[in-house]
C-alpha cells in the first residue's frame, strides 16, 4: 500500500463570481522513502495540491471531491482534531520563504517545543532536548545558544535549516516541501537541498517536492508529476519524463531550461501564459499555447495514454500511439 495516495482530488474556490475549480482530477501516490516532484508554472495548482493534502486550503477554498489516503485513512474525512494530529506529526511541511515562516516574536525553542508538546505527552525539558538533537542533525552551530534566539537573529539559510529541523521533530513518514529553496541565496540553495535529501534518505522519509525548477526535479526525484491549469498532464518516472517527454507542455518546460540553449542565443520559452482558473479553455487547457494542436484538442478533454512508464493526457500523443500500433 502506498504511503500517500491522492485520488481524483478536486478543490473548489467559492468566489463571488462563482465557483472556480483550482484542482481537478489530481491523482498521484508516493511510497515511504520515495521522492516525487510536482512541477508546473505559477498558477498550475502545485501549492494548492500540497496544502490540500493537509486540508489547509484557506477559505473560500475547499476540497470538493476525491480522496487523500494516508496510511489507509482518508484525510478528507477526518475531524478537525484528527486532522490536527496528522499535521506536523505524521506529515510535516516546509514552506517556501524561511524569512516569513517563523513567528518573529517567539524564540526558536518555543516554536520547536510547542510542536512536540502538541503531539506528544512530553515535558518542556525533554522537548527541548529533542529540539537540540534535531538542531544538531541539521548542522546548526552551537544549538544551545541558537535555541533561545529569535528568528531575526538568523540568516535565511539558517532559518530554513531550523524549519527542516522542525519538520523532522516528530519523525514523520512524509514531508511536503513547497519550493523549499526558491527564496534562498543561490549559493546556499544546493546546500539546503542536499541537507534535506540526505535527511530524508537517512530517516526513510517520503518527500513531495513542489517546484517550478525541472532541473532540481531531474536531479533529486524518482517520480515527477507535471501539472497545468489545475490538472495533472503527465506523470511517471523522472528519468523518462526528462529524457523523453511526451506532452508538448513538458517538452516546452524542458526546452525552457537554460542548459538547453546555446550560449549567446535567446532562451526558449513557451508562448503565451497559464490561463486564469476562471477562463480555462475548453478541451485540453493547453491547446491555445500548443504547437501540435489536432482536431479534438479544443473540443474534448484528453484522457490518459500510457507511454512507457508514464501516463500522458494528450490527444496528439494518443493519436501517434494509435498510428504506431496500427502500423506495427
Amino acid at each position, binding site marked *: 500500500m502506498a504511503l500517500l495516495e491522492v485520488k481524483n482530488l478536486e478543490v473548489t474556490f467559492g468566489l463571488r463570481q462563482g465557483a472556480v475549480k483550482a484542482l481537478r482530477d489530481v491523482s498521484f501516490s508516493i511510497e515511504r522513502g520515495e521522492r516525487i516532484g510536482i512541477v508546473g508554472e505559477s498558477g498550475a495548482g502545485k501549492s494548492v495540491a500540497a496544502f490540500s493534502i*493537509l486540508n*489547509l486550503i*484557506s477559505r473560500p477554498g475547499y476540497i470538493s471531491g476525491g480522496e487523500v489516503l494516508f496510511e489507509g485513512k482518508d484525510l478528507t474525512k477526518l475531524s478537525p482534531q484528527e486532522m*490536527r*494530529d*496528522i*499535521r*506536523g*506529526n505524521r506529515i*510535516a*511541511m516546509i*514552506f517556501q*520563504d524561511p524569512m*516569513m*515562516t*517563523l*513567528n*518573529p*516574536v*517567539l*524564540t526558536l525553542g518555543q516554536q520547536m517545543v*510547542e*510542536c512536540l508538546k*502538541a*503531539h506528544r505527552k512530553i515535558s518542556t525539558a525533554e522537548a527541548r532536548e529533542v529540539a537540540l538533537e534535531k538542531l544538531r542533525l541539521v548542522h546548526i552551530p552551537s544549538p544551545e545558544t541558537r535555541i533561545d534566539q*529569535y528568528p*531575526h*537573529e538568523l540568516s535565511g539559510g539558517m532559518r530554513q535549516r531550523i524549519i527542516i529541523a*522542525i519538520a523532522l521533530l516528530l519523525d514523520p513518514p512524509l514531508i511536503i516541501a513547497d519550493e523549499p529553496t526558491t527564496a534562498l541565496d543561490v549559493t546556499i540553495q544546493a546546500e539546503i537541498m542536499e541537507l534535506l535529501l540526505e535527511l530524508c534518505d537517512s530517516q526513510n522519509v517520503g518527500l513531495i517536492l513542489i517546484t517550478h525548477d525541472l532541473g532540481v526535479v531531474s536531479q533529486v526525484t524518482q517520480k515527477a508529476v507535471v501539472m497545468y491549469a489545475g490538472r495533472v498532464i503527465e506523470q511517471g518516472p523522472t528519468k523518462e519524463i526528462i529524457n523523453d517527454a511526451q506532452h508538448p507542455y513538458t517538452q516546452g518546460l524542458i526546452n525552457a531550461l537554460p542548459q538547453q540553449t546555446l550560449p549567446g542565443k535567446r532562451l526558449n520559452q513557451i508562448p503565451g501564459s497559464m490561463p486564469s482558473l476562471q477562463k480555462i479553455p475548453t478541451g485540453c487547457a493547453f491547446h491555445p499555447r500548443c504547437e501540435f494542436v489536432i482536431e479534438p484538442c479544443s473540443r474534448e478533454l484528453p484522457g490518459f495514454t500510457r507511454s512507457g512508464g508514464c501516463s500522458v493526457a494528450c490527444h496528439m500523443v494518443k493519436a501517434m500511439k494509435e498510428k504506431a500500433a496500427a502500423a506495427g
Partner: protein
Amino acid sequence: MIAFLIRRLMQAVVVMFVISLISFSIQDNLGDPLRELVGQSVSEEERQALRDELGLNDPFLVQYVRFAGNALQGDLGTSYFFKEPALDVILKKLPATLELVFGATLIIILLSVPLGVYSAIKPHSWFSKTVMGLSIVGISVPVFLTAIMSIFLFSVELNWLPSYGRGELEPMFWGWESGYLTRDGLLHLVLPCFSLASIMLPLFIRLIRAEMMEVLQSEYVKYAWAKGLSPMRIYFLHALKNTMLPVITVGGVQIGTMVAYTILTETVFQWPGMGFLFLEAVNRVDTPLIVAYLIVVGAIFVVTNTVVDLIYGLVNPTVNLTGKKS
C-alpha cells in the same frame, strides 16, 4: 535600557520646553485675568499697579524666562483663584482623573481584545457584524452625548447608578483617596469610565480586528496550522502577540489623549478632577493654573509614551532599545 532612558529623558526635556513655550504664549490671549481677580470697584490705577506687581506688563520673553526659572524649581506659578501654588492645586485633583482614565483603560483592554479577536476570526458571523456596526456608531457619537444619554438612562430613568461626583472614598496611600475601594465609589466610577471609554473602545476594536485579520493571513500563522497546533494557541499566542505590536504603540498615544478627553467627561459628571478644574480655570481666566495644567498633561504624555515604548521593546524582540548591534 539605561541608555534608552537617558536618551528619552533628553528628548523629554526638549518636548517639555516646547510645550511650556506654547502653553505660556497662549496666556495673553485668554482675556484679562484682572477682571476676574479684582472686583468692579477697583480703579484703573490700582489695576495697573497690580499688573506691574504680577509682572503682566513685562515683555513676553522676560515673563517666560521668569516662569521657566521658577518652573525648574517646581513652581508653576500661583493660581489667581485658589491663591495656592498651581501645581499643588492640580496634583490634588490628579488622583480623581487618573482613576477615571485607569477605569476607562481597563474597560478598553478587557473589551477590545476579545471583541477584536473574535470579529477577526469570524468576520462573517452576525455577532462580528453587530460589533462592527456598533463601533461605527460609537466612533460617530460625541462623548458629550454618550455621557448625557447614559445619565438619562441609567440614573434618571432606571435609577441604577449615581450621575455625578466620586461618591465615598477610602484613603489608599500618600493621601490618595480612592473610589476603587468602596462599593459606592465603584458605582460612581461606572458611568464616567464607560463614557470616557466609549470614544476609544470602537477605535481599538477596529484596530485589533484589522491587524489580527492581516496577521491571520501571514505565512507564520499558516505554518503554525501546518504544525498541528491548537487553534487557541495559534490565535492567542502566535497571532495575538503580533497583532498587539502596533496596537501598543497607538495605545500609548491614546492614553494621553484620554487624559485630555476627561475635560468633557468630568464636566458632564461633575467629576472633581483635573479636567473639570481646567474648564473652571478657563472660565476664571486663571492663567497660571491653565499653563500648569497644560504642562502636567504634556508630562503625562511624555511619561506614558516612554513606558509604552519600554513595553513595546519587551514584546517585540526585533526592537533593540539600546540601539546596540547584537
